[in-house]
């Protein structure tokens, strides 16, 4: 059986998307909708924009992000997400692993020239 593109992407996202979110939040705290738009610009990363919100909920439950309200000129106060120390540590650990892991994957996937 050949897996569909969606199935492959789902597996890849499952292990990486939360760290991509942590990376974005490390640069600056973000409003959920803005984050969804940023990630949504890369359809490979986020299939359906709505799936971001349960992910943020899980990350908050894990203690990797926290929320706070920030006043908005466009309407009611918005809930922003920012990294916690645990989130920062998780991101640092993932970065370290990812560098080696992705190099191994690239090496393994490189077609033979013979």
């Amino acid at each position, binding site marked *: 059986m050949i897996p569909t593109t969606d199935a492959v992407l789902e597996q890849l996202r499952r292990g990486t998307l939360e760290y991509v979110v942590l990376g974005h939040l490390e640069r600056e705290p973000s*409003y*959920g*909708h803005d984050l969804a738009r940023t990630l949504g610009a890369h359809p490979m990363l986020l299939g359906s924009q*709505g799936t971001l*919100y349960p992910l943020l909920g899980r990350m908050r439950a894990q203690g990797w992000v926290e929320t706070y309200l920030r006043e908005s000129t466009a309407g009611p106060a918005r*809930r922003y997400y920012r990294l916690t120390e645990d989130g920062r540590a998780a991101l640092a650990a993932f970065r370290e692993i990812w560098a080696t892991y992705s190099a191994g994957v690239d090496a393994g996937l490189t077609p033979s020239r013979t």
Partner: protein
Amino acid sequence: MTSPATRHPHVGAYLAELTDRLAGLDATGREEIVADVLDHIAGETARLGHPPSTTEIDTILAALGEPAVVAGATPVPAPELPGRPTMAIACGVLGALAFPALGVDALLPALLAAAALLAAVTGMLLDRRNRIAYAVAAAVAVVGLGLAIALWYFWLPVEHVQVDPSGLVGTPIDG
């Protein structure tokens, strides 16, 4: 955040289905996800710069994903520790063994019912996923225990039993 757009019936239906599908989450987690989704819809409609048509609302909802898909990305409840039903049964067995060990010479049916009750209560505490089944088992065990005690008090001939003041021990006098 509410706006005319977020009060659109399609949005209402979407949020209602999403809420239903998030029923497995605790109330706070569910409300936060729904609030974020509602903010998202409000944000998307605000970007349009005009009151959205039904088609535009539907496009926004489609980009969000089906409620089932969004709910499918919810945190998976922590898996139950393996062996919890086994642990509950083990507690029941230990309870059954503990009664005689403590010198309580109860009737066998009462002993078994008490052990079953102990196992069911332990199961309710440890195996929350199956707590309804354990609650039913506990209720059955309570009824069984009651019947066993009733049997002990009312069916056994009193003159053949020397009843301990605690009411838990009955020793036949004449073997």
